[in-house]
């Protein structure tokens, strides 16, 4: 990538000063990891693409709230978490409105399970990951895939670095259990 010379924070400061084109290099750097992160959270590619788009839209909308002293990465992941939380709430509301729909998806999930056994080894793990509770999945994703340290995860999740470390450990244990149970 040609734009690596400028730091994320400098670019975002420019965006904040209404130089909106500076968002392009930030998009190039972050849309992949963000999409990845959101896909792990939602288990839905289309939704994740929409949510990734929403994250960048919010960056533009709330650019004035960015403090140049804070790391851009932490800020943007916080935003992604919020976007996902909003999406989750909307979905919950829809679900509550239609109980039958929930039962149907439950049935579909059973079918998905049987399908899973035939699929490849990596997809197995992928499915196991999908079966983890969202908070545990999130922490694993942040730790293993997004390269977050415990300090950063703690900040993002609103806990200490030590607590984040313990959570990550438990999440990995839980994943192991699911994975080897099959």
């Amino acid at each position, binding site marked *: 990538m040609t734009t690596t010379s400028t730091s994320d924070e400098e670019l975002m400061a420019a965006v904040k000063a209404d130089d*909106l084109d500076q968002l392009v290099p930030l998009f190039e750097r972050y849309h992949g990891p963000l999409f990845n992160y959101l896909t792990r959270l939602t288990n839905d590619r289309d939704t994740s*693409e929409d949510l990734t*788009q929403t994250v960048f839209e919010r960056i533009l909308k709330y650019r004035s709230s960015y403090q140049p002293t804070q790391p851009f990465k932490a800020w943007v992941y916080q935003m992604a978490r919020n976007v996902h939380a909003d999406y989750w709430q909307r979905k919950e509301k829809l679900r509550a409105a239609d109980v039958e729909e929930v039962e149907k998806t439950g049935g579909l999930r059973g079918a998905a399970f049987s399908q899973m056994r035939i699929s490849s080894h990596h997809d197995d793990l992928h499915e196991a*990951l999908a079966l983890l509770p969202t908070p545990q999945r999130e922490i*694993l994703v942040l730790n293993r895939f997004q390269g977050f*340290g415990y300090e950063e995860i703690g900040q993002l999740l609103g806990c200490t670095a030590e607590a984040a470390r313990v959570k990550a*450990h438990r999440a990995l244990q839980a994943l192991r259990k699911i994975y080897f149970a099959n």
Partner: protein
Amino acid sequence: MNCERTKEQLVDYLGSQLSASEQAELTAHLAECADCREELQAVESMWQTLGKVRVPEPSAHIRPDFYAMLATFKESVDTTPDYTLKGLWQWWLNLDIPRPILRAVYSLCLLGVGLIGGYWFSNSRTTGAADQQQIAQLATQVGNMRQMMMLALIENPSASERLRAVSYTKQLDEPTTKVVDALLSTLDNDPNVNVRLATLEALAPLAQDPAVRQGLVHSLARQESPLVQTALADVMVQLQERRSVKPLRELLKQENLDESVKSKIEQTIQTLSTGRPAAPSTPPRNDQTNLTSPAQRAAVATV
């Protein structure tokens, strides 16, 4: 170091996120604890597998979507001006207007304020038109009251009250026929000379009304006071009322007629029958009636 703590640190060991001393401690423990070595292997394989999980790639259209979104957002930023006070002030400061134009605009604004103010002020005055209508209504009511008072007072036994009643009619803008009738009957019948004179004075300006004229002419025959007779004759001249000639002649036939009145009436008859320059075309008895001084007139009358 116990096994529990070691197990917790294994992930960090794999992710090489441990400090040097922690790492040393951990390797030392692993060397002597087979259980933990096994655990490490399991975690490691898990960790590696996790690392190999297919990374989902966004589809090709995420990029064009992003650029479209960015373009739309830029457009909306450009087209939605900043309406906060600060934004407006910034906009105002950024405007590059030459000073004379600014001054002209300023004075135009002042002029506009003046015009609007004036318009508003005059408008608020015309809204007083309603008030004026009310005042007019009140005035007509007062007029009606006066009329009623006048009609009541004119029957009063006291001459001074009747005089007041007559004077009220002068204040009426347009006396009704009732008032006129009352005045005419007062002129004919009132026992007091002063009242009758005042009534005549009040009626004279109303003489454009044919009924009033008629009444005045008829009244000539009924008057006995020389003062009133003279005054009536004067009014007849003023009005150029030719119909009064006949009753005036009748008046001349009265035996107890005052001398000065007689001459006055003769003069009036002459004036009326000939027009202003009193040429004696139909003199009743003498040709000298156009003499002006009262002494001469008196002299002529005695002849």
